[in-house]
């Protein structure tokens, strides 16, 4: 794949003039963007998160592994739990400020697909441009439960506090090298603000 030139990188001419300092367009990359945009199509895809994670684990998909409804909530010695992530315990790589899981599989699939359905044009534009889309949305009702660190921002020692949330953070990618372009969910998880 041809790469974008260094000169002028970071500048953009959105077609409104003023492009005298813009770099020479990389025709190959330009055609790839248009090609992905066409391949992704007008109709939003539908996702089943369990099947999505099975198919794209090697590409980084990890919703079920880190936020699936099957994860136990409270800390248990030697067990990967939602609360344990606040402390970087068994099964987790480090301590986080917030750790939440989906309440149930049907809510998880319904809210992901509702978001994709309602925002497909923007998602499609992002995926066509650089293969990646991320956003935070409010489902408008409880979708997840978990914990946040009451001691963050220097407020005190690390301490988990239970909470519920209607917020969801989502990341979507195109499988690298897929032709036609295949979108998948990298992760979608309840995101309490804490």
């Amino acid at each position, binding site marked *: *794949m041809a*790469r*974008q030139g260094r000169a002028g*990188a*970071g*500048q*953009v*001419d*959105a*077609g*409104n003039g003023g*492009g005298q300092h*813009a*770099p020479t*367009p990389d025709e190959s*990359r*330009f055609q*790839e*963007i*248009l090609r992905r*945009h066409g391949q992704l199509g007008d109709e939003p895809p539908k996702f089943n998160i369990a099947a999505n994670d099975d198919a794209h684990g090697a*590409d*980084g998909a*990890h919703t079920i592994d*880190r936020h699936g409804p099957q994860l136990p909530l409270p800390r248990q010695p030697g067990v990967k739990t939602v609360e344990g992530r606040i402390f*970087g315990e068994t099964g*987790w*790589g*480090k*301590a*986080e*400020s*917030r750790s939440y899981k989906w309440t149930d599989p049907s809510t998880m699939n319904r809210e992901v697909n509702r978001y994709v359905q309602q925002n497909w*044009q*923007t998602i499609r*534009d*992002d995926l*066509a*441009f*650089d*293969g*990646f889309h*991320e956003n*935070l949305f409010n489902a408008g009702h409880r979708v997840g439960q978990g914990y946040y*660190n009451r*001691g*963050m*921002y*220097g407020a005190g020692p*690390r301490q988990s506090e239970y909470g519920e949330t209607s917020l969801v*953070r989502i*990341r979507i*990618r*195109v499988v*690298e090298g897929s032709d036609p372009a295949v979108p998948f969910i*990298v*992760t979608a*998880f309840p*995101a309490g603000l*804490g």
Partner: protein
Amino acid sequence: MDTSGLPESLRGRIAERVALPPIEKVRALLHGYVADAESFDEIRAELRRTARTNDFHLRQYLDALDTVLAEPQPPGTLLQLVEGDANWGIDHDQTDSGAAVFLREVAEALRSVIAES
């Protein structure tokens, strides 16, 4: 990058993201690549996946992060970026200075990924 031949919605989306203030671009970087990561290796892997397709927005993020780190910020801003937006605990130094160390590490990871692309 001359986007004049792209579909109108896509041009608008690119322009919208380019117009964000630096602090919002940094938040987008942290939300997209850091907030659910288990390690810096995972952050780099995700950045590389995007860079191999198109590093335009990653360059925007790096410029924004360099700007935020270089300019004075209101007290608590950097710490909130790390423990809030990046969801990354820094119990050993919960200060703006401690947060700046972490954010510089993110900037260097991003810089090296862009240099590879």
